[in-house]
């Protein structure tokens, strides 16, 4: 097995496979819509599926870092930006379907809905929070903002997910099992981060729990992880240049040490 110099596998197939798999539900939706097999209320069906996909990808993007924390799986971090962008992509299609097909671009009806219905308002707020995250998802934005600020900004993903779950709960008539499942998963992910943050704070960052030893060094990670690694690497460079800080946080998710409470 070919390995990168630091011992991590390049997993060249990972990103293209997740990318392709993530487009399958959309392809199937388009296929079913064009063949008239989306059921009796195709617009509602498309709306529900697109919204649910946006939430699934949002929760999945928030699971990447806890997966590394719990199991040391760094591969999930490499997928985070793409998964997050898929969430935005499906949310955009969801909002577009609502405004364009469900309301037939009736701007007045959409604005009335937004103003009067808290369920639509929180959904729209969740979408609005995703916009700056999508816009600043590229490495250049991290360099411009500085890693610490970029990271603070991207904690909005949690707010967006919480709002999206509330949107889901308020949408259903009485059966809240499905939205509750997402709420529980989201709560669990948040808990992992809080606990990890507290522990890290207590142990000064050297905890084995972080499996910091397994994380690739930035220079190696850059080649192994592709563009994603550019983010912390760039952030390091900046923090070093500004205040000659202690050793660079390593690897893709390496910023933990400088900002414990993610």
């Amino acid at each position, binding site marked *: 097995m070919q390995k990168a110099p630091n011992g991590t596998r390049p997993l060249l197939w*990972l990103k293209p496979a997740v990318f392709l798999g993530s487009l399958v539900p959309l392809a199937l939706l388009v296929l079913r819509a064009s063949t008239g097999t989306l059921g009796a*209320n195709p617009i509602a069906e498309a709306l529900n599926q697109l919204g649910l996909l946006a939430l699934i990808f949002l929760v999945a993007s928030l699971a990447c870092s806890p997966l590394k924390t719990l199991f040391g799986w760094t591969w999930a971090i490499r997928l985070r930006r793409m998964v997050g962008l898929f969430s935005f992509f499906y949310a955009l299609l969801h909002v577009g379907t609502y405004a364009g097909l469900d309301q037939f671009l009736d701007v007045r*009806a959409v604005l009335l809905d937004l103003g009067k219905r*808290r369920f639509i308002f929180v959904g729209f707020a969740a979408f609005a929070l995703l916009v700056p995250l999508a816009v600043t998802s590229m490495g250049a934005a991290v360099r411009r903002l500085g890693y610490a600020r970029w990271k603070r900004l991207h904690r909005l993903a949690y707010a967006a997910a919480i709002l999206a779950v509330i949107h889901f709960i308020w949408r259903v008539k009485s059966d809240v099992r499905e939205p509750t499942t997402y709420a529980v998963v989201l709560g669990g992910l948040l808990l992992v981060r809080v606990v990890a943050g507290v522990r890290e704070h207590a142990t000064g960052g050297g905890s084995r729990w972080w499996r910091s030893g397994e994380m690739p060094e930035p220079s190696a990670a850059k080649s192994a992880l592709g563009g994603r690694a550019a983010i912390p690497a760039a952030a390091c460079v900046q923090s070093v240049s500004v205040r000659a800080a202690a050793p660079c946080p390593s690897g893709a998710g390496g910023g933990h040490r400088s900002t414990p409470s993610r």
Partner: protein
Amino acid sequence: MASPPQNVPASEITPEPLYWRRREFIKNSLLFAATTAGVAGSLLWLTKGGRATNRAAAPSSEAALPGMTPSLYSTDDPPTSFADVTTYNNFYEFGTDKSDPARLAHTLRTRPWMVTIDGEVRKPLVLDIDQLLRWFPLEERIYRMRCVEAWSMVVPWIGFPLGDLIRRLEPTSHARHVAFTSLLDPEQMPGQLRRVLPWPYVEGLRIDEAMHPLTILAVGVYGRTLPNRNGAPLRLVVPWKYGFKGIKSIVKITLTEEQPPTTWNVVAPHEYGFYANVNPAVDHPRWSQATERQIGELARRPTLPFNGYTEQVAGLYTGMDLRRDF
């Protein structure tokens, strides 16, 4: 095991680095395919995106109900397709997804089926559904049906006026309301294993609403016996009210003095009133009731007061504040 061939020219032997790269390529291809399938499969499972709806193009298994006379109460609107009427159903006794009844309602046994009629009547009785069917001539009533979720259908029901049944049972002077109860049997209705609603489902009408000629007990749809998924063997249809008033699989009809509890009103009183008259001016707290999407159409259409039956039923509510009594 075959021994390695001795006479292969050196030029045809794959160089070792290439040989390893080929193995790597095959391995990565398999991992790529498996990951793609895993991601796609998980997403489709979570969104139920791959589930095909069980749609019959025409009525098949249900028995034909011949000789139906057209009714003057029928609308001229073209009926929603049989496939849509029988696959897009809210019938929480079989699950909360609209495709659940079509998949799961086959467990309901509609014969023998006894209906208890009691309360403020001089002739309380327990009646077999087949006997009940012989009491009244069946009519086809093509009605608009407006769901509280802001979609609608046009359904060619088959049934008889509820008022005919009530008159036959001779209500007492205390009979002010009519209470309806659905079957309670989690073995036949697996959705009742979960308390998404308090079971059994109950509904109610004021006696004048129940006696109104538009109010029917339906036993069929599209010229055939009612499929299980649509509330067989006996269901209520009140076309000027939201669809949830149309209680399904009725086992008990009780005439009462007091206003009876109604399921959705008990669950969420600020969202679902006892009257539940279709009213575009009174929004559901979470969504607008001003427009609806008729199944089969793409654009929304305006919702009509009393679902378009104002002329016939507005008189029942003179002097009432329908914003308060929604």
